[in-house]
């Protein structure tokens, strides 16, 4: 098997060009699927018999919550690759992931709070999922804080990569301990989304939105990755050539 395509992924100019070519594809696909998902979710899907029209925020809330975890996993995987094989581009990917992931986490918390206000009658509930999500936000902030405080970029890359890997080991432990803590201290919260039987007309737009958000993340990541690579390679000789073309 020919592995050159894989090795080229370690080269900043190649990845920069690749990201530039791929960005519009992911961007447009994400935009189109998001329109389809929103139409399905806001217009086609029937109102929930218990939650009425208010449940529709789930079409934004659930995908952002899903992305907050997926971005963290992507970040940690990229960080581990960078740490093990010392690939600079992998570190650039991890660095580009963090602010996007933190934004998704914040969006998930904000939409969750908006969702909770009419459904639970409260803006905030010490529910295990909300709490874990909040802690995930702190993990992102710690990661970005550590990266920001180290001046030397190689050291920043490697130190924050160790932190991302440590975090990924801890996320499940934190999640389960929070769940366990919650089940002891508080009456179970009614979390209607946990119901497996979601009618197809409601579920299909949700799946489309998940896809749309994933594509959106990839598009954002590619844009940020290009900026990150330009910043890191600003003294390299290939930059003027690429920027001129």
């Amino acid at each position, binding site marked *: 098997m020919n592995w050159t395509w894989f090795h080229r992924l370690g080269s900043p100019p190649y990845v920069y060009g690749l990201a530039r070519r791929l960005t519009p594809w992911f961007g447009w696909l994400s935009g189109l699927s998001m329109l389809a998902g929103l139409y399905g979710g806001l217009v086609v899907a029937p109102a929930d018999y218990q939650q009425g029209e208010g449940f529709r925020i789930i079409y934004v809330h659930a995908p952002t919550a899903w992305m907050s975890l997926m971005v963290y996993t992507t970040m940690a995987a990229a960080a581990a690759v960078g740490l093990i094989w010392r690939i600079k581009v992998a570190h650039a990917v991890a660095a580009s992931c963090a602010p996007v992931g933190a934004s998704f986490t914040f969006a998930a918390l904000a939409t969750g709070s908006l969702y909770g206000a009419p459904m639970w009658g409260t803006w905030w509930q010490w529910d295990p999922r909300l709490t874990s999500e909040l*802690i995930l936000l*702190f*993990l992102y*902030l*710690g990661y970005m*804080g*550590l990266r920001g*405080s*180290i001046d030397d970029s*190689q*050291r920043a890359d*490697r*130190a924050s990569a*160790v*932190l991302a*890997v*440590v*975090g990924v*080991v*801890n996320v499940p*432990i*934190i999640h389960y*301990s*929070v769940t*366990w*803590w919650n089940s*002891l201290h508080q009456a179970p919260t009614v979390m209607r989304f946990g119901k497996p039987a979601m009618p197809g007309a409601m579920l299909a737009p949700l799946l489309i939105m998940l896809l749309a958000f994933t594509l959106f993340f990839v598009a954002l990541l590619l844009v940020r990755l290009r900026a990150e690579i330009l910043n890191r390679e600003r003294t390299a000789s290939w930059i003027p050539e690429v920027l001129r073309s």
Partner: protein
Amino acid sequence: MSSHAATLAGERRIAAGNASAADAGRLVLLRDLKLAFRRPGQLIQPLAFFAIVTTLFPLAVSPELSRLRAVAPGVLWVAALLASLLALESLFRDDAYDGTLEQYALSGQPLTWLVFAKTATHWLLTGLPLALLAPLAALSLGAPPQSLGGIVICVGVGTVALSLIGSVGAALTLGIRRSGVLLALLTLPLSLPVLIFGARATELAMRGDSFVAPLELLGALAVLGITLAPLAAAAGVRISLE
């Protein structure tokens, strides 16, 4: 400087490469203990901090023991967590500053093991004394006397995990100016499981119920920490030396 001379002999043996890994770990542990006991004032600081924080709560909440009893486990654990965190900043700092860590990394001894020895010192100097001080604080917050033994065990086991998690944060923030807040930001979210199980075990102990289940989970966290944290902390130390 005289404090260093006292342990030079041990360090020379490590440097000469004719000490086994176990010896090297023991020597590092003894050296750190010896250095720490030369500055008793610093040793007492985390304990004094713990005592003051637990004193703040009756003043802030209410002097009624019945109300304090309800928040006592949480107060004890938050105070222990912060006190342990306070002592973390100096875990590697002085040794990084005077080049000792660099010598450890070059000594041919497994750095993971030496870092573990340093972390063990941190526990012996903060975790263990905190565990011994905790019953006093608990008593003042309305814990029944028969629960005090359980509280010592819970805090003792839980602080092992705290020291280990903290060692990773301390190693990663080495060489950063004013790293204290960042260290808290990195360490506190990762310490949450310890806080949860620790407070739960303490609460059960105070009620006179069996606290074996959360204590076992604390033990599991400590064992997991012993297995993995020194590896990550040693990686962090190496990165800071690059």
